[in-house]
């Protein structure tokens, strides 16, 4: 009798990578639904464009690199990158912007470093930051007012705006060109107080409310991932703690010049960053202690950028900056093995 000879262990129970990635996508569903409810079909179109480009470019590169196209394409990592990138874009982003960002994320940020598992930077955030720099107008000016604060756009108008850069017939009224974070930052820089800013129509309750609900939906997805063991609590908690700590300190020091911690936690990409972006395992720190440091750093840097730098939402930059710090963090947080503890 002859038997198969394989090394131990002979059993495993892991959820394979494709399934992990699929669950990340499931976890995004509530956020997509809420986002679409507030901002219309633009997000879905952007996700579709990004996914198509991501899969096509990944397949092409895999072939160029002579890798097993089926094995790697089926890991869903490209789809996750595409979805996260699309999620960070304004809903009327022109198609060529989305395509550029996705191509950069997949080809440069991911495959030029060796593909899945080897990229030092979060590909979605690398793509996003490239777009912020290369297409500043498109990235800043194409936010439409959420449902309840504006008229909303039809699917036809959305498609026209994305593919033909045609202004919606209803006029540019629907386009506010500002999110609450933009508004606060620019108004504060004009020496306005928080109470004056809050009186501005752009800070209309339903706009702030829309972002609150989107962030809650994202957090719900994050909690789903935590419950399923797809991500662990260290990074999200540390990101939120870092941001909340900074916001609270400054808010307590001067409530009129600094938005509240709650505002910071529920606007922009805070929750997306905490649960979906910073938790990208490939580009995060490795040890548990390292991950706490990594996440905390992201929270603190995001606050600094939001408050003092030229970009309204600091999450993407914060993640990339901490990506750079990962090797150092890893170096200094090697855990003491069993039996080698200093008592």
């Amino acid at each position, binding site marked *: 009798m002859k038997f198969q000879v394989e*090394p131990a262990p*002979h059993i495993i129970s892991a959820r394979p*990578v494709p399934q992990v990635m699929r669950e990340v996508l499931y976890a995004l569903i509530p956020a997509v639904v809420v986002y679409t409810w507030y901002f219309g079909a633009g997000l879905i179109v952007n996700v579709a464009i990004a996914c198509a480009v991501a899969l096509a470019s990944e397949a092409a590169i895999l072939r160029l690199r002579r890798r097993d196209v089926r094995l790697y394409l089926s890991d869903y990592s490209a789809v996750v990158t595409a979805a996260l990138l699309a999620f960070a874009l304004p809903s009327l982003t022109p198609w060529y912007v989305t395509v550029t960002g996705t191509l950069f994320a997949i080809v440069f940020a991911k495959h030029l470093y060796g593909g899945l598992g080897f990229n030092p930077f979060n590909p979605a955030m690398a793509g996003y930051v490239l777009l912020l720099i290369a297409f500043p107008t498109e990235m800043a000016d194409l936010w439409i007012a959420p449902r309840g604060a504006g008229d909303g756009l039809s699917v036809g108008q959305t498609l026209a705006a994305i593919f033909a850069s045609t202004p919606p017939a209803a006029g540019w009224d629907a386009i506010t060109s500002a999110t609450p974070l933009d508004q606060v930052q620019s108004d504060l820089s004009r020496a306005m107080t928080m109470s004056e800013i809050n009186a501005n129509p752009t800070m209309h309750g339903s706009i702030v409310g829309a972002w609150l609900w989107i962030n809650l939906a994202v957090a719900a997805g994050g909690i789903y991932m935590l419950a399923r063991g797809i991500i662990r609590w260290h990074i999200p908690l540390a990101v939120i703690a870092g941001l909340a700590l900074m916001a609270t300190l400054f808010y307590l020091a001067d409530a009129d010049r600094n938005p509240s911690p709650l505002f910071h936690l529920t606007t922009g990409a805070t929750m997306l960053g905490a649960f979906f972006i910073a938790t990208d395992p490939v580009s995060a720190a490795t040890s548990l202690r390292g991950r706490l440091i990594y996440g905390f750093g992201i929270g603190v840097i995001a606050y600094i950028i939001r408050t003092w730098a030229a970009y309204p939402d600091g999450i993407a930059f914060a993640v990339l900056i901490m990506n750079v710090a990962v090797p150092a963090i890893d170096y200094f947080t090697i855990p003491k093995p069993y039996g080698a503890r200093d008592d």
Partner: protein
Amino acid sequence: MNQDQAKANLLDLDEAPVGDVLTPTRRPSGFYGGLYLPTDKHELAGQPLETAPPPPHVVLPLTQHAGLPAIPCVKPGQRVLRGQQIAVADGFISANIHATTSGTVIAIDEQPVPHPSGLSAPCITIEADGKDEWCELHPVVGDYHTEDPVRVRQRVREAGIVGLGGAVFPTSTKLTARADINVHTLILNGAECDPQISCDEALMRRYATDIIAGARIVLHILQVNRCIIGIEEDKPESEAALRLAVEEFDDDRFEVVRVPAIYPEGSERQLIQALSGREVPSRGLPLDIGFVCLNVATAAAINTAVTTGRPLTERIVSVCGDAIARPANIIARLGTPVSSLVELCGGYTSDVDRLVVGGAMMGFAVGDDNIPVVKACNSILAMTADQGRSSKDIRPCIRCGECARVCPSRLLPQQLYWHAGSHDLEKLERYNIFDCIECGCCDYVCPSNIRLAQHFRFAKAEIAVQDADRERAALARQRYEDRNRRLADAAQDRAARIAAKKRKAAAAADIHKRRKVITDVMTRVRQKEARRDRTETQ
């Protein structure tokens, strides 16, 4: 569990009075990492034990223990009896081997043995005569308590007993006192945590009294007054049986403690941490912190050896897995072919795919079942293709960190894997590869299906080879330098000698010259005097 908890649970076992700190209901703190593995072995452990009939031949490898191979002390053609010694331990870390049935030694040669390498090794083959006749036995007569502990230990050594949990370290060596260490606690390991193996559980259920009796002997050998028995909480029957046995002996040195059923609790380091909150030093032994840890089966074997004089000739083997028709725990004598045990269990089902010696987590797959049962052989596990894991679809590491979360040695397997891939041996040591106990927890959870433990086995071997190479190189360099020095010394000597000779020659020449001058002068003086004499006489 966090570090503070671990500290809070740290017991001062040197001080603590017996029965005070570890009450039977106390839930120990556990250890870092590990896994709850699904298991269905308890049913099997509850079934009656079967005894395998003596096979026509037994094949007894000379290495069934950690350390040097034993040296045969019989010759082909010689008749032997069961229990008769056929090979002698070679040194302190080695163990005697005994005939496991009566018959004739027909060969001492290379035979296939259960080993991960799949290679053959020297074995003694005995053709059974079917009489299964025991040799004359020498139990410790009377009460071992009055016997010198060293003599009792000697009996354990003679009986060829090794750790039966799988590590097969010679037991008497483990029981040898060291002047610098105060042993305070004996730990009996009843935490059989591999998801398939149930030989220890079967033993604990039925032979609890033998186990406790054996442990009492060990307490006498060690001159220690405390024994903690660690049992996993999913084995209530074993626990009850052991408690009952302890009661029977009415021995208050014993404590039965329940530990959570987390793999790899059967590893003595993890068990000690679960029971005491203490960690065995990284490169050290349990002995370094005053513990001696024995498997329950080892304790039972010690009892047999001391009270009946019978050496180790059989053990319980779990024959299990989806591809075994009728799984069972079998008392099998050492040297029995694995194939015949499988036959006894109704053979393989048609979809058998792999055969593992040992557990599903740490056992090694063998290509052939024509190998003998050895002392280490706690389980024969036959798996079907869908039960076993395959090396298909291995993906790159996504650094998810799940492996680090479950590693009981608190390592970073993903980093080790990275450095193993680039053969960066220095980094591997920096990331403490030698603290890896090869438990496979990291493999079990890796979503990329990476063969982590296997990479670490290779890497360790690679470092060992490199170290050996380095040592050899250092030795060679030393020799070369010594030789150079010798040559240089010789050359210097020679030069010195030549110089000395020259100096001597020169000095000789000098003296010669001076002498010549003197003689010349003398001659001249003498001539002058002669001339003067001549003139005076004229």
